[in-house]
């Protein structure tokens, strides 16, 4: 199966859910291997679920909420707000850098 190499970073306390490690280099399947979207190119929604199943160590509800990234987490795709890139439907490319930063610290 073909894979995509990605650089994943967690910030703002979110790294605590991922072995307290800020930077992860991962290789994820380049197409969705199973489920409703089987065969579709891997997008951020798929990546989010893949991270939950493969890297997340605790409290998944702080990362994923109703199928997507929890509100209050800022997602950057190659240093650009994912809202400019189609959010969860952004199709991942080799060597993309995806950053997840939690904003749930309060004032």
């Amino acid at each position, binding site marked *: 199966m073909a894979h995509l190499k990605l650089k994943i970073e967690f*910030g*703002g*306390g979110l790294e605590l859910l991922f072995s307290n490690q800020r930077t992860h280099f991962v290789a994820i399947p380049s197409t969705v291997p199973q489920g409703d979207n089987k065969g579709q190119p891997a997008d951020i929604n798929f990546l989010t679920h893949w991270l939950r199943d493969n890297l997340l160590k605790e409290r998944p509800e702080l990362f994923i909420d109703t199928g997507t990234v929890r*509100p*209050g987490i*800022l997602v*950057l795709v190659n*240093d*650009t*707000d994912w*809202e*400019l890139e189609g*959010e969860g439907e952004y199709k991942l490319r080799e060597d993309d850098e995806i*950053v997840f*930063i*939690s*904003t*749930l*610290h*309060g*004032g």
Partner: protein
Amino acid sequence: MMAEFCGNPAVEAGEVLMPRKRKFDRSRICVKCKINPGNLVIRHSVYCKGCFTPLIFTKFHQALEPYINHVSVGPRRGALKPSGALLIGFSGGLGSSVLLDLVYQRYCANVGSDNLKGGREHPRKNKVWQKIYVCYVEVSDIFPETSDRTAQIREAIARYDGFELIPVRIQDAFDRTWWERVSGGAAPDLAGLPFDLGGGDSEPVAALQTHIRALPTPTAILSTLSTLTRLLLLYTAYSVSASHIVLGTSLTSLSISLISSISQGGGFVVPQAIQEEWFPQFVQRTIGDTSWNGEVRLVRPLRDVGMKECTAWVWWHQLLVVGKQRIPVPKQTIGDLTKNFIIGLERDYPSTVSTIAKTVGKLAPRGDSRVRCVLCELPTQQFVQRWKSRTSIRSFTDDASSMDTATSSLPHYLCYSCHTTLTSKSARSTATLNLHSSNSAPALNLPMWAATRLALELGSEQSVGPGAPANEIWETKKLDDGGMKSLVGEFLLENE
């Protein structure tokens, strides 16, 4: 066309798929420089990374600098002359971390250097504040499950030159030594009074724990901690001759606290939730005096900066965020529920949250009051118990109302919001707050400022309330349950 209308029965049967809303208005090009591709969407507007930093600086100084001079003289930066020092209230959280950085970048970094080129129109960066303090309030002594983070906070602050940390502990509010220090010996002798106001004799941690244990709900615990923190910051600011306190309340947190405060009865003090002028109870002020007598102005310079912008600032400026202490309360509070709601709302309808802050911010209640609640020291309507009797259902056999109007009962000196915090919706009668505690009812421990004020009020006169003429007309509009619901309901339609 027909085919499209009649198409896909599967979709029509179940979920009709809404077209995805775009989160930005026009193009992906930055609205400011109109050259660079955008990096961040802020309430439908696209900004590039290069324009983002000056944008936040502008929002920051526009929300702070017009309020720096004791009496406003004009918009020119060269004329900024605060009366006293600056105190930053620091929680370790997102907003206050960004605030700390902004204060440093604007008033401390490269001070005196000519890095802002230009002639007379652009005065050199000069030192505005002679002294900048950072105050952190530690709560860990009260909650054994939390750990003391003062060392981490000290480390975070040490990354900036020239800030002096003042560590405060939440139980200082009940500490006679602390009170004597910040008030300059204004603590009265509480021993001769016919009731126990707490704070004086017992150990501060135990006194605060007793106070907290007596609270009816987790929501009440959190709102008490936030009131104590606010007053600790204010009195600390006074004690170091600070004329200003800045807090890192973001637009998002402001909307959260406004909505949750209104739903807890804090409607009267909405203007103070945004900005506040405070002076210690023992400072005598003459009307019309424009000189500075130690008053403290509390400002929220991030009130136009959302949580998302704060997050982007932290990431792009590589700040270290210690994180805010999580208070271990047993179940979800009104604050939690409001927070989840507002943060979800901000993602799906980004402009609505700023509309909430702006709309609620304009609700200036009529009937400004010079009478202050003994506990939170915010302006209060007089005779809270009258308000209470209008808004709650009382039984005909309830004769507590006659007792409530006695000046010896604590409710007489409380605002609606503190009164609600100390009692629950219906579980407790205000009669348990009677200061003349019987042997069976334990005395209610009160923070030092409240104990002092009550001692003075009750010691000096017995017949009149907190400075209120007995025949004063209670003119402020009643905000009953229905009114409150419809006010909040404008924003909370979906879930309510």
